[in-house]
């Protein structure tokens, strides 16, 4: 399917907070209680519509363990949006947010939209981090905040789509230069300035599209 824009996202956060589950819920609309842990990086993609325009989200899902930080860092570059995820039932994942944010700010372009996500909101009884704390952290660092549940799918769509909306607004405002792929935004095949084979099948375009 053709798209007007392609946005590159990255999902970051401590190990086991539910990054891969969020992605699975968003792309496949399903939840897998146990699935393979992420080694290095995986990715998924989905089309959404904003303002009547088809937008393809290409989402890079990273491994959370410290040992993989060096890989994760190389994926910040060229991302238009980042979902910074913590687990509301584990305080330590919230405490590590600052270091994740530092990493993100340091290695990404300055306009990257960062969405803070408190995941596992369905586990209210085991909550260790108050919603207000998440809100306060987001306010302090200029992030958008949302609590989600990859299990019940609560707010998952919204988290990804709101981030896209924000990026879209920034494009309209002219903050992002859409012709510079380092910003994590790519024009769709029919809009692309360097489109060599117009209309020759989108498959080849979307395959070559946006990979770092």
């Amino acid at each position: 399917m053709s798209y007007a824009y392609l946005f590159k996202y990255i999902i970051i956060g401590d190990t086991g907070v539910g990054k891969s589950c969020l992605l699975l819920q968003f792309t496949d609309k399903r939840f897998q209680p146990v699935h393979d842990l992420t080694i290095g990086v995986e990715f998924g993609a989905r089309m959404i519509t904003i303002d009547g325009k088809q937008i393809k989200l290409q989402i890079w899902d990273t491994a959370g363990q410290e040992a993989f930080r060096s890989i994760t860092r190389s994926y910040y570059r060229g991302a238009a949006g980042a979902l910074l995820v913590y687990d509301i039932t584990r305080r330590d994942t919230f405490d590590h947010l600052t270091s994740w944010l530092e990493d993100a700010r340091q290695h990404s372009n300055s306009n990257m939209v960062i969405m803070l996500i408190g995941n596992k909101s369905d586990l209210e009884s085991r909550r260790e981090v108050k919603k207000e704390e998440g809100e306060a952290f987001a306010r302090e660092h200029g992030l958008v905040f949302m609590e989600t549940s990859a299990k019940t799918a609560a707010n998952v769509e919204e988290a990804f789509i709101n981030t896209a909306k924000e990026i879209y607004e920034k494009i309209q405002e002219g903050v992002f230069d859409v012709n510079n792929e380092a910003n994590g935004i790519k024009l769709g095949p029919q809009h692309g300035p360097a489109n060599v084979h117009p209309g020759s099948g989108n498959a080849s375009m979307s395959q070559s599209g946006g990979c770092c």
Partner: protein
Amino acid sequence: MFASYCMSLASDPMLAPAPQRVVRKISPPLSASAYYAHQTTRRRRSGEGGGDESRVRRQTSLVNAATLMNAVLSRTRSRSFGSFFDESVVVKGCNGVQYIAVLEGTPWPVVREKNYGQIETDAKSLNSLSNNSGHSRRSSDTSQVSVASGGSSSGQNGPDGDDVDRNSQDENWSLWGQIVNDWENFSKKKNQQLRELVRKGVPHHFRGIVWQLLCGSHNSPLKNKYVQYIKAPSPCEKVIRRDIARTYPEHDYFKEKDGFGQESLFNVMKAYSLHDREVGYCQGSAFIVGLLLMQVSE
């Protein structure tokens, strides 16, 4: 080690942009008891005496995933692990030759590195070997389909094909039985023949033993240390625990919560984290250990 592997992954433009992982489907291992059962019925059928059985048993008791893991990891430390994630693992042979074992539901043909064409042919030609043996853990047939061999001819052979298979299998078995019993001599004197045999594929039931003999972990002094490691607490325990259920979550051997498989996996991971404190625990290494545990006991 993993960190450096990862870095090499990230900097490699061929590897970095395509991280979509294929869910590996590997057949459940054959337990040692099933192996003996098979051995015994074979003997009864062919009228062999049980004289060398104790020797075989002695060899099998050397089976130890932990030391094997250490041998595999420490020897491949400086090498790129890319091939592991291509469904294969590098096993270094006793004579310094590298072999790749392909992780498939069917026997793992062990061949010289990068010889991928060969691997596929071998996998197909050897399919029959694991076909009619008594797999004790083979509870679900759905997990049998392997990626590369694509569930080829196995199970579809006619009665004639089965007979031929059984004969060649029996030959293969007795040959490997001899090799394992007389490893020292054989590996020294008939190294070339051994190499060729290994390249054709070690039969499923000998694989665990032969791997250890090949990398020399069968008489490793680390075996004693393992006992200590098991008892000692490790700072990585919590993180390891968190990932145990996320390692081969659909594999029969590992899927049961706090089951035998998960417990062995945890023990080996913890022992490794104590043995190699610099690395401690790295996500993903449990997949290597899990893979070894499918072939050899803890």
